[in-house]
């Protein structure tokens, strides 16, 4: 019996939503870690029972939680994130040098084949790795130490490393994205990095096609075609067919190309999903109508998906890590909003139903596709 487990991080706790493969009836568990911000939680592809969660608070700092039973019980593990060597400086909002300071973990990316290995993307932007199930964390300093590091500046949400993608076909290749520095790639398991931003154009920086400085919001890859990447940038939806070496805009006929999340259908590498948002100063859907847009052509041509989504008076946002897909035969799409709704579609986006309507603001949504007992 197959099923899905949807992992939801919110401003005030984590929620675990489970259903069988029909995805019609849902069990809602939570809040876990009530009152804490849960920026992200994600399961190991190698062991569905192993989950990691980033729990943080302005009062009490960062905690990392680990579950070995699919989110039933949790154990706090290591939470010491120390930048390696002299931290150095990056640019502050006013252009002055600012020391690198750890603030929180934005994203946890478990290894594809080892449940005890997990990567953490943090603010101020850095990449850490644990190889002992989260008990100890070591920085991969080559990224932050890139020669462009001192010029990186925070986006409005802080200088966060929010996206980590592990290439399933090429061990050692990792993509990372930082607001507002851009996309980076390592081909040696995170030792060395280089920017992969050619083709991006951003109006908010002095040199619009600079090597770094772009506010990349999210990246997505289909595992069967890891050289094809999709990007939602601050403005513009972009595509690369050469593992980030070059990008071209595929915003096409979207009503607006500003947004945060982007994801790819589990079985159709050319089917892509975005949630257009009015603008950088109006973080809500155009005309108050919540529409997911789907392209079946790898970009450029987009169709609005509205069946079951509010089409009036809707002024929520969908944050960068708050969309995910399952891999059941009929691909499920999930996203959460800042209004606390988590919507699910069991038919690739043709129709939507809210799983829950009144959670705290949703920060992240991840999905595990379960088989057998679904531990």
């Amino acid at each position: 019996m197959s099923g899905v487990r949807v992992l939801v991080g919110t401003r005030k706790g984590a929620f675990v939503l489970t259903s069988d493969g029909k995805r019609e009836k849902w069990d809602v568990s939570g809040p876990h870690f009530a009152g804490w911000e849960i920026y992200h939680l994600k399961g190991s592809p190698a062991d569905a029972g192993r989950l990691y969660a980033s729990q943080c608070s302005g009062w009490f700092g960062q905690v990392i939680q680990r579950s070995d039973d699919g989110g039933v019980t949790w154990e706090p593990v290591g939470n010491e994130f120390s930048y390696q060597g002299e931290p150095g400086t990056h640019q502050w909002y006013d252009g002055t040098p600012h020391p690198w300071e750890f603030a929180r973990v934005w994203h946890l990316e478990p290894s594809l084949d080892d449940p005890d290995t997990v990567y953490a993307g943090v603010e101020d932007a850095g990449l850490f790795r644990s190889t002992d199930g989260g008990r100890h964390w070591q920085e991969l300093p080559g990224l932050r130490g890139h020669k462009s590091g001192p010029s990186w500046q925070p986006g409005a949400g802080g200088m966060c490393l929010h996206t980590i993608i592990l290439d399933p076909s090429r061990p050692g290749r990792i993509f990372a994205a930082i607001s507002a520095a851009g996309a980076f790639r390592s081909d040696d398991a995170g030792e060395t990095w280089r920017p992969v931003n050619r083709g991006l154009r951003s109006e908010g920086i002095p040199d619009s096609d600079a090597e770094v400085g772009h506010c990349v919001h999210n990246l997505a890859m289909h595992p069967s075609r890891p050289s094809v990447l999709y990007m939602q940038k601050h403005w513009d939806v972009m595509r690369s067919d050469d593992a980030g070496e070059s990008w071209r805009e595929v915003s096409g006929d979207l009503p607006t190309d500003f947004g945060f999340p982007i994801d790819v259908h589990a079985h159709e590498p050319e089917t892509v999903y975005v949630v257009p948002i009015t603008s950088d100063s109006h973080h809500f859907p155009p005309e108050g109508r919540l529409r997911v847009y789907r392209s079946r052509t790898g970009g450029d041509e987009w169709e609005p998906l509205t069946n079951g989504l509010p089409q009036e008076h809707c002024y929520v946002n969908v944050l960068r890590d708050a969309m995910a897909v399952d891999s059941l035969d009929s691909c499920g799409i999930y996203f959460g909003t800042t209004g606390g709704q988590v919507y699910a579609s069991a038919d690739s986006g043709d129709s939507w139903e809210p799983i829950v309507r009144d959670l705290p603001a949703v920060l992240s949504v991840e999905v595990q596709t379960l088989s057998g007992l679904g531990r």
Partner: protein
Amino acid sequence: MIRVALPAHLRTLARVDGEVTLDVAGQATQCSVLDALEARYPMLCGTIRDQQTRKRRAFIRFFACEQDLSHEQPDAPLPEAVVAGAEPYLIVGAMAGG
């Protein structure tokens, strides 16, 4: 025996109810109490003070005997009433919205 009162979120994290009681070797100071607390409950490391600098986190306060000890030297002796267990050492999340 030192009595320590934790804020609700840290009681949950440490999986304790009510006050924590600690035996502190030598002179009882804020630093030695926090050392003993973190040794007993390692999941609290980093939630009260920075793990490298050991400085109090910005929105944490330390109270005892109706006094704010937050800005006292970490190695200063604690009030006698706290050392005797008559009064608790209070670790408090500073008042702020959210």
